[in-house]
C-alpha cells in the first residue's frame, strides 16, 4: 500500500474582544435576550450607513504583527454576496483582494513554519436556531467583528493542525484581542484537507470541513476525512471537491449538498466604506504596544532561567501566568522553586483550563517572591515552603505571618550547628556506637536534630555536620 501524506490548511475565525460591533455602537457582549443588541445598521435596514470601529483595525494589525505578517498600507472592505437568513443584508462586509495583513507565519515546536496567507477583518453573521423545520434568527452576534486567519496548506499532520490552532489561540489571548473560546464560538475554524502519496509535490483534490468548534472535533474530523480520502484513492475512486460537515453523533464527515454551486460570491467593493490607510508610524506604535509573545518567553525561561521545556510551556500558556511568574521569580536565585509553586500547588487549586489561564489566586507575585527568597537564603526548607504556601493561598496573607522568627532562626549555619551539638550531647551512646562502626546509630542523633528544629533542618547538611562533630 502507498504511504499517504496529509496536506492541510486552516481558516480560523476569531471574534475580536472589542466593546462594540464592527460597524455600529451596539454591544458585543455574549448572550443576552435575542435581538436586544441590535440597531438599524446591524440588522441591515435600508438607508443606514456602516462606520468602521477603529479598534477593529488596531486589533487586526496586532494579530498580524504577532504572527509575523506584513501590514498593508492600503486596504479596503468588500461585499461578499450570499442569501441566507443569518445575513440580514444578504451580503457580508469582508475583505477580498486587499486584506489588512498578509505573508505571516507561525513556528511549530518541530521547527516547521506554517505560513499565514492573510488576515482580514469582517462582520460575524447572526445566530440561527432551527426548530420544527422553522428557523429562529437572533442578530445579537450579527456585526460582531471577526478576523479570519488563512494559512497556506503547510500542515502535514493532525498533531501539527492542533498545535497550530493552539498556538494561534495562545498568541491571540496573550495580545488580548480575543478570548478565543471554541465552545462559545469566539474561535472556530474550517479545515482544508487533501492527501497525496508521500514525497509527491502535487496537490490532491481537497475537501473543506466547515465550522469546527472544538479541538476534539477537529482532530476526530480530520482523522475521519484523511482515512476516507485514502480509502477512496486505494479503491481507485475519485475525491470530489466539496464542502463537508462533521457530524458529532456519527463522528463522520458528510457532504453538504447544494453548497458547490454557491461559491460565486460576486465580491465587489463596499461603496459605503472608505479606504483604510495604515502609516508606518501607526504600525510602529502598535508594535511597541505588543507584549513579549509566548514563544519568546519560553525561550527565555529555558535559556536564561534554565527551566525545563515543559515548565516553560506551562508558564507561557497565558499572559497572566507568565507575568505572575516573572514578578515572583524576579531576582531570586531559584526560579525553578517559583515555577514549581505555580505549576504544582497553585495550578492544583484551579480546576479548569480556563481557570488556570485566568490564574485568579489569593496571593500577589510579590508574596510568592518573598517565600522563594526565604528558601534562597536557607532560612526555610522545601517542606515548610509547601505548607506555608497552602496557608498563604487559603488566607491571602504573607509568608512571614506563618513562619516565626524562631522557625527561621533555627536554620542558619550557627543554629544548625547548635542543634547538632545538642543532639550529640543528648545521645552520647549513639555517638560512641557510630564511632565504633555502627553507621545506623547516626540516624538516632539526626532524628534528634530534626525534632529540635521541627523538621526544618536540611537533613543532608545536618548529617554531614554530625559526622564532622562526632569525629572531632
Amino acid at each position: 500500500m502507498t504511504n499517504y501524506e496529509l496536506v492541510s490548511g486552516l481558516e480560523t475565525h476569531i471574534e475580536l474582544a472589542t466593546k462594540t460591533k464592527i460597524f455600529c455602537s451596539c454591544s458585543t457582549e455574549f448572550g443576552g435576550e435575542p435581538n436586544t443588541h441590535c440597531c438599524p445598521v446591524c440588522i441591515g435596514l435600508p438607508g443606514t450607513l456602516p462606520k468602521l470601529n477603529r479598534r477593529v483595525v488596531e486589533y487586526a494589525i496586532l494579530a498580524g504583527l504577532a504572527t509575523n505578517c506584513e501590514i498593508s498600507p492600503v486596504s479596503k472592505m468588500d461585499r461578499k454576496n450570499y442569501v441566507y437568513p443569518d445575513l440580514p443584508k444578504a451580503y457580508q462586509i469582508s475583505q477580498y483582494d486587499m486584506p489588512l495583513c498578509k505573508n505571516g507565519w507561525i513556528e511549530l515546536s518541530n521547527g516547521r513554519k506554517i505560513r499565514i496567507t492573510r488576515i482580514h477583518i469582517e462582520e460575524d453573521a447572526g445566530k440561527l436556531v432551527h426548530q420544527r423545520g422553522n428557523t429562529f434568527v437572533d442578530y445579537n452576534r450579527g456585526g460582531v467583528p471577526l478576523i479570519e486567519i488563512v494559512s497556506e496548506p503547510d500542515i502535514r499532520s493532525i498533531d501539527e493542525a492542533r498545535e497550530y490552532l493552539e498556538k494561534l489561540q495562545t498568541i491571540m489571548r496573550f495580545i488580548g484581542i480575543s478570548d478565543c473560546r471554541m465552545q462559545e464560538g469566539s474561535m472556530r475554524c474550517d479545515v482544508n484537507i487533501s492527501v497525496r502519496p508521500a514525497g509527491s509535490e502535487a496537490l490532491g483534490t481537497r475537501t473543506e470541513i466547515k465550522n469546527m468548534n472544538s479541538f476534539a472535533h477537529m482532530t476526530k474530523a480530520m482523522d475521519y476525512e484523511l482515512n476516507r480520502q485514502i480509502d477512496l484513492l486505494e479503491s481507485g475512486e475519485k475525491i470530489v471537491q466539496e464542502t463537508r460537515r462533521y457530524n458529532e453523533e456519527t463522528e463522520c464527515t458528510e457532504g453538504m449538498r447544494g453548497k458547490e454551486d454557491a461559491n460565486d460570491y460576486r465580491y465587489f467593493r463596499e461603496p459605503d466604506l472608505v479606504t483604510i490607510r495604515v502609516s508606518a508610524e501607526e504600525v510602529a506604535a502598535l508594535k511597541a504596544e505588543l507584549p513579549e509573545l509566548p514563544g519568546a518567553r519560553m525561550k527565555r525561561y529555558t535559556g536564561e532561567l534554565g527551566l525545563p521545556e515543559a515548565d516553560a510551556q506551562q508558564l507561557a500558556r497565558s499572559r497572566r501566568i507568565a507575568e505572575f511568574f516573572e514578578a515572583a521569580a524576579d531576582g531570586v536565585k531559584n526560579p525553578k522553586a517559583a515555577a514549581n509553586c505555580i505549576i504544582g500547588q497553585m495550578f492544583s487549586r484551579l480546576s479548569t483550563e480556563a481557570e488556570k489561564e485566568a490564574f485568579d489566586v489569593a496571593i500577589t507575585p510579590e508574596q510568592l517572591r518573598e517565600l522563594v527568597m526565604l528558601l534562597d537564603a536557607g532560612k526555610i526548607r522545601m517542606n515548610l515552603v509547601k505548607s506555608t504556601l497552602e496557608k498563604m493561598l487559603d488566607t491571602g496573607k504573607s509568608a512571614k505571618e506563618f513562619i516565626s522568627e524562631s522557625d527561621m532562626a533555627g536554620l542558619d549555619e550557627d543554629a544548625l550547628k547548635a542543634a547538632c551539638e545538642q543532639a550529640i550531647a543528648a545521645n552520647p551512646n549513639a555517638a560512641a556506637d557510630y564511632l565504633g562502626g555502627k553507621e545506623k546509630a547516626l540516624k538516632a542523633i539526626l532524628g534528634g536534630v530534626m525534632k529540635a528544629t521541627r523538621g526544618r533542618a536540611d537533613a543532608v547538611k545536618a548529617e554531614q555536620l554530625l559526622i564532622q562533630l562526632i569525629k572531632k
Partner: protein
Amino acid sequence: MVTHEEILKIAKLAKLSVSADELVQLTKDMSEIIGFADTINAVSPENSDFDNINHLSNVFRDDVVAPSFDSGEILKNAPEQEDGYFLVKKRA
C-alpha cells in the same frame, strides 16, 4: 473573455433558462461589459485616490457602546416573529 460555460453557470445560479441563440448574444454582451469593467480595474487603488470622489480615507468611530434599540422596535418590520426572534418559516 467570457465563455459559454460561465454564462450557463451564472444563469443557473440566477435560476434563468437560456436558449442557444440567447447564449451567443449574452456571451457577446457580457464580454463587452466585463471589458469595460477591466478599464476601471486597470487603475490600481494602491497608487491613486480614485476610490472615492471626496478623497476620504480612514473614517472611523471610537469603540464606545451606545444603547441598542428595543427588540420590539427591531422586530417591528419582521414579516413573522416569535419569542423575540425573527421567524423564517419552512418553505413548502
